[in-house]
């Protein structure tokens, strides 16, 4: 029984991720604005890579100054382009967030107080709050829906975006915990 519940949650979160990518496609990815932004980011990135490669090959100190300036300029442009791109995504992110909250509260109602599965480990401190949510008792290997749903959505969303090629472009300064900033 427990396995079925986990599989159900897994399927729901796969479906939810696919749906949210679909909504994003409808609202953002197919617009010309987004395509243009994406293309310009790819172009800048390619330029930057080429310059960096050249720089690592030529060790002559004389030309280094001008090259560095060029690299800096392109990096700056890249940062701006990235910002614009994530701004254009905001609309769909808002829609997706609302529907995700709705879905989550629906799941919460079904699995309220249900022990979905037994964990093969005892989660550390702050995770117990998630894994033992709405469950009575002191046995911390009991696991609630919230924990399963959280970890499912973590890897499924990431991998689906990679498969569909819609993953946000990676930047080195990118901080995975800085999500709320985009809702400004």
């Amino acid at each position, binding site marked *: 029984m427990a396995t079925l519940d986990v599989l159900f949650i897994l399927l729901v979160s796969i479906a939810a991720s696919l749906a949210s990518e679909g909504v994003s496609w409808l609202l953002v990815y197919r617009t010309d604005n987004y395509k243009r932004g994406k293309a310009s980011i790819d172009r800048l990135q390619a330029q930057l890579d080429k310059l960096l490669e050249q720089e690592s090959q030529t060790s002559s100190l004389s030309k280094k100054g001008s090259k560095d300036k060029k690299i800096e300029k392109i990096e700056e442009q890249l940062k701006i382009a990235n910002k614009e791109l994530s701004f254009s995504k905001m609309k769909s992110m808002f829609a997706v967030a609302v529907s995700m909250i709705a879905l989550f509260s629906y799941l919460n109602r079904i699995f309220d107080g249900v022990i979905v599965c*037994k964990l*093969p480990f005892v989660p550390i401190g702050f995770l117990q709050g998630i894994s033992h949510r709405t469950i009575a008792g002191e046995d911390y290997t009991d696991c609630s829906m919230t924990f399963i749903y959280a970890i499912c959505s973590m890897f499924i969303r990431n991998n689906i975006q990679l498969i569909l090629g819609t993953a946000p472009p990676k930047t080195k300064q990118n901080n995975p915990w800085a999500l709320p900033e985009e809702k400004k």
Partner: protein
Amino acid sequence: MSETKDTKKSQLLLLKNSFNKDFKFTNKEISQNIHWLRQIVSVLIGIIVGAIPITGYPGFIAYILFTCGFVAIYYTKVLEVEEDDFKWELMQEGFMPSLTIFVISWILVYNFLHV
């Protein structure tokens, strides 16, 4: 033009060639490949760990040892990557997704066989 063609190599083709030493990868393709190989390895480790079953923190230690070991062996023996920065980047590539995919497969197999 060649650049756009390169980026459109399908992921399956890349994965099939991941142990082919003559195949030339760009850095981006290497990261992608490592990401997917890591997910596959994590699922396998999760299934094995769940089937034995290992419980508690030894499971996580096994996960870290095997995936990091796998990635390290892969990039030193097969890809022969030299730069330290890039190695570190590859080490982190897809860490969170693979950790969670490992936990899910561990939980699933453990619950299926032993609860």
